[in-house]
């Protein structure tokens, strides 16, 4: 079984969501779209990015802790 890091799976999924947004945006250029961007999309991306970066740093630390205590 291949063990993948959760932060990398999360980053991949954030990339897929970003691609779906990029596909929708060219066809959606009205005031409602701008409100959705400001009210939902931008906070979603910012908070997801903050979380996934923090998770990545934590998983790095956990892996180092595991390696560094294998005597």
């Amino acid at each position, binding site marked *: 079984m291949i063990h993948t890091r959760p932060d990398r799976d999360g980053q991949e999924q954030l990339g897929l969501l970003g691609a*779906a947004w990029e596909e929708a945006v060219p066809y959606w250029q009205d005031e409602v779209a701008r409100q959705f961007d400001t009210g939902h999309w931008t906070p979603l991306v910012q908070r997801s990015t*903050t979380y996934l970066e923090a998770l990545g740093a934590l998983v790095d630390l956990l892996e180092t802790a595991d390696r560094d205590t294998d005597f």
Partner: protein
Amino acid sequence: MTKIHADIDALKGLHEAMVRFRHVQRSVAERGNDEIELTRAALTAKAGHWQARLEQSQAEFDACRAGPGADCSGYARAVEQAGEQLEHIRGWQQRVDEAAGEFRGTAGAFWDLLQNDLPRAESHLLALIADLEAARRAS
């Protein structure tokens, strides 16, 4: 008419991606918590192992010193090494606890996003799609 079709398909695609994102990220968040607990459990097991080694080495050292004129330096070294390993592991336990504590706030905010804000955004998008479909039917 073509433009509205394109709008609806693209927004439906975005909605599906958001739903998928929410499900996958919930699993990511749960796995993140699992990683913390697995590491804590592994460090606890290692600390237990070295604590037992330390106690055993100490007992051997004490028994050696109780005898007359024996060279106990090897036992003394074993006690020192076990103590250092144990101290090293305890240092990592503390670092992991601190990092997990700092992470908890960010993780909580993200969980709240997945449980509340994201479903609201999905509902908002579904309502927009329904409006567009109604407008298309009316035209």
